[in-house]
């Protein structure tokens, strides 16, 4: 057991412990155990950082040469470390949050924590796998874990339907990965990412197959439609799914492809991927604006944000990769936080419908603060890591002269800001809605607050001092992909080599003048508070009657109705229905045959497989 395998082994050990101790542990105990395990794994991952900073890839063969050149092993380079740290770090915070969140769950907590641990271990294995086969195995492990986690409340039809949709879309697209690696193996005889023999075999067709798989995992348009369906999962699952483990697998795959032959795939596939990313940014955010369910809103923002990350990666430059990877980390932080806030709100109020929320800031001040930090971050407000990420991304796009990307990103971020403005105002400010009247709303528990607060704090920390993250994590990852990126970056994410000091000064001045003004107001005679009521046309309005998120969304919907007609879901539904019909027909006609003679179909499949291998 080397330090390279330690993080994964810790998680698997935790998994075994969960199963063994299930009988004696309370739900809280299980949660604490899982949290401790993931945290330990996080610490173990951190020990890998110095090596990756030095540019050394730690190798750990697990099953060396079990079948000729095909070996399963770990090769932990900068990129792997980034994803491992992200997965375990965010995972630890989310599990800390789930301790209290899941404590009232009557059954299935063992299942929950055990699978969560495997889920995270799957990501670690994916990130650390030295070859494509290992990565594919991890890929499907993640998929299966997410299937069972999304369907955690398997007694609810919506949850199981969602889980099935997740599995079908991502698994079907995952065959792209499988077919691609089979092709590579057939041509090169090896599947090790870094093997020079792989490079010529890794044609752009293979890359396209990989990208399709990554698109489904990373919710790229038009394969994004599973994500809102996955919202029936427990909130920690959603948080983990969205922020760290699941959707980021696709990001990892795209980034990892740069290792092969110096990113030769990029030449052919870079532009399509960019286009997909740009469309995804807009589609995601436009759909997000129309949502009233807090979690669905966040889900569509994940779509949009993943678009940004993929755009960064698709740029194919050192700065672009750095931007994409930094964005990936930042997104993990703020999206995880936002989901946890949504979970806390649902935990406290029993609803996550924005129409039924309002005025929570007074009842849940801590959650409100955490939410605002994370929302500012996702909207790209200066002083947060979201700003740094966007700034880097725009700089990278500008370096390549891709102004359209900047424009799209710009519009996307404005829409994101509006969307979060709406969500924030609706959930935390204004008058509590009638649905909440009479309910005793409690603040999130300390451990929940600690889980999300720590991540929100990191959002701010890495917003002010991104170099803290850049130097040890992001830069080695970029370097491990074969790009030489010298981190020339100062506070607030200002690229020192590009001389944008104006941004710093401008931002500082705005802040300073605002502070000064506030001071003047405080010193000046205090205006009388609340002598008059808000003007409502001469007669009082019913309390709590205000245009909310839904009304904004509806107004926006009327205004940009043409854009909404892009929804691809009906198409899927049609395919789905056709498939069900075909399956039904097949069952009725061939059912008897298959049931009576099971050997026949198996034999047929075997023949087909043989024919396939022979043909290739």
């Amino acid at each position: 057991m080397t330090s390279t395998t330690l993080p994964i082994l810790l998680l698997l050990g935790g998994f075994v412990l969960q199963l063994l101790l299930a009988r004696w542990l309370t739900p809280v105990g299980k949660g604490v155990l899982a949290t401790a395990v993931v945290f330990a794994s996080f610490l173990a991952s951190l020990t890998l950082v110095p090596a990756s900073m030095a540019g050394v890839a730690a190798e750990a063969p697990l099953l060396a040469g079990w079948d000729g050149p095909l070996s399963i092993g770990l090769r932990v380079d900068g990129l792997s470390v980034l994803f491992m740290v992200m997965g375990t770090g965010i995972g630890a915070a989310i599990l800390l949050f789930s301790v209290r969140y899941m404590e009232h769950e009557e059954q299935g907590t063992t299942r929950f924590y055990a699978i969560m641990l495997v889920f995270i271990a799957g990501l670690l294995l994916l990130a650390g796998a030295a070859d494509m086969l290992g990565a594919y195995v991890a890929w499907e492990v993640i998929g299966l874990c997410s299937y069972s986690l999304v369907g955690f409340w398997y007694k609810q039809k919506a949850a199981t339907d969602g889980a099935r949709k997740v599995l079908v879309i991502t698994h079907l697209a995952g065959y792209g990965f499988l077919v691609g690696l089979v092709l590579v193996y057939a041509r090169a005889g090896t599947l090790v990412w870094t093997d020079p023999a792989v490079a010529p075999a890794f044609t752009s067709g293979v890359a396209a197959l990989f990208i399709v798989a990554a698109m489904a995992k990373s919710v790229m348009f038009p394969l994004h439609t599973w994500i809102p369906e996955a919202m029936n999962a427990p909130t920690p699952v959603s948080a983990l799914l969205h922020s760290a483990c699941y959707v980021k697998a696709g990001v990892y795959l795209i980034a990892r492809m740069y290792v092969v032959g110096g990113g030769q795939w990029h030449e052919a596939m870079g532009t399509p991927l960019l286009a997909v990313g740009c469309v995804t940014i807009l589609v995601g955010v436009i759909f997000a604006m129309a949502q009233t369910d807090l979690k669905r809103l966040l889900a569509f923002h994940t779509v949009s944000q993943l678009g940004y990350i993929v755009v960064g990666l698709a740029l194919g430059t050192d700065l672009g990769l750095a931007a994409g990877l930094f964005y990936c980390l930042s997104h993990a932080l703020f999206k995880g936080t936002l989901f946890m806030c949504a979970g806390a709100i649902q935990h406290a109020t029993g609803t996550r419908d924005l129409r039924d929320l309002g005025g929570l800031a007074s009842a849940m001040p801590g959650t409100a603060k955490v939410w605002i930090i994370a929302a500012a971050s996702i909207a790209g407000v200066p002083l947060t890591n979201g700003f740094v990420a966007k700034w880097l991304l725009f700089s990278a796009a500008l370096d390549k002269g891709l102004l359209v990307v900047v424009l799209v990103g710009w519009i996307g971020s404005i829409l994101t800001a509006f969307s979060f403005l709406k969500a924030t105002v609706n959930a935390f400010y204004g008058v509590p809605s009638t649905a909440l009247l009479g309910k005793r709303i409690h603040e999130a528990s300390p451990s929940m607050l600690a889980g999300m607060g720590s991540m929100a704090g990191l959002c701010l920390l890495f917003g002010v001092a991104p170099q803290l993250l850049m130097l040890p994590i992001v830069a080695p990852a970029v370097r491990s992909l074969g790009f030489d990126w010298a981190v020339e970056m100062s506070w607030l994410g200002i690229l020192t080599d590009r001389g944008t000091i104006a941004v710093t000064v401008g931002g500082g001045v705005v802040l300073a003048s605002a502070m000064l003004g506030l001071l003047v107001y405080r010193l000046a005679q205090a205006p009388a508070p609340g002598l008059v009521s808000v003007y409502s046309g001469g007669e009082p309005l019913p309390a709590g009657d205000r245009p909310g998120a839904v009304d904004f969304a509806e107004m926006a919907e009327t205004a940009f109705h043409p854009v909404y007609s892009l929804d691809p879901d009906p198409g899927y539904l049609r395919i789905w229905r056709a498939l069900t019909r075909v399956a039904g027909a097949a069952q009725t006609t061939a059912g008897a045959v298959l049931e009576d003679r099971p050997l026949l179909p198996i034999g047929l499949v075997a023949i087909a497989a043989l024919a396939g291998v022979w043909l290739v």
Partner: protein
Amino acid sequence: MNAVWSYLVAIAVWPGLLFAAPLGWLELWFMRKLVARLQGRQGPPFFQPFFDVMKLLGKETVIPRGVSRGIFLALPLVSVAAVTAALAIVPLPGNPVPSLPGDVVLLLYLMEVPVLCEVLAGYVSRSIYGQVAAMREAILSLAYNLPFLVAIIAMAQVAGSFQMRALQEVPYGLVHLLAAVTFLLALPARMKLNPFSIANAEHEIIADSHIEYSGPPLALFKLSHAIEVVLLTELFAVVFIPATPWPLVNLVVYLVAGILVLGGVTLLATTTARLRLTQAFRFYWVWGGLASAITMAATLVR
């Protein structure tokens, strides 16, 4: 002069607050006077906008019940600060601020802040009218920002740089013309003038999103609007009017161009009714989008 001092001078004196506030008032007066004359009225004397602001400054600040005090008061300040800072990086002749890469991006960012402040102002005021105004403002900004951003980005594309000075030095050509038209398309909505005075449609929603504002905070919003008018017109002049080697001539040309642009949008405002939100949105995404596409195409085929 070191950088910090030059920024301070730029924000406080030239082309910032000390210069922009009177100029903004003068330009607002010009628009009001022109509207009045076009409608066959006398119009106000030139010091009227100044008096308006002074009057507001002397009035009591009323904060309605249940409105978050801090945000309510901070918004107009942030708005003024942002537009002033934005103006400070416009390379008007004699601007002491050194031109830096990426200042176009910063400028565009800062120009969004007042809009955001207005939207927030509508929401924090908790007035139904303010909230509807805020929603309209937010959606409208999605409409007019398309041509507005494209106009600037197209110029940056031609210049190959996101630096204001570089934009100024682009050799004059077709893109200038197209981008200028695209920019002008966005201008009436940005200035909240007819036919796009949708967020401040007093006959539909009583007032704009600062319906609950009074006294000094309202004065600050008015000031912010005045400076925004200067900012928009001078930005247009600086980016799209060819510069001469003589700074003083440039300055005069820019000011005249700004006044002419204002005259144009005023003329448009006086000959039109107010459109609906959907109509304005359609206008901007169809005609603004078309102009944007043509402008971008022109930058590519160049």
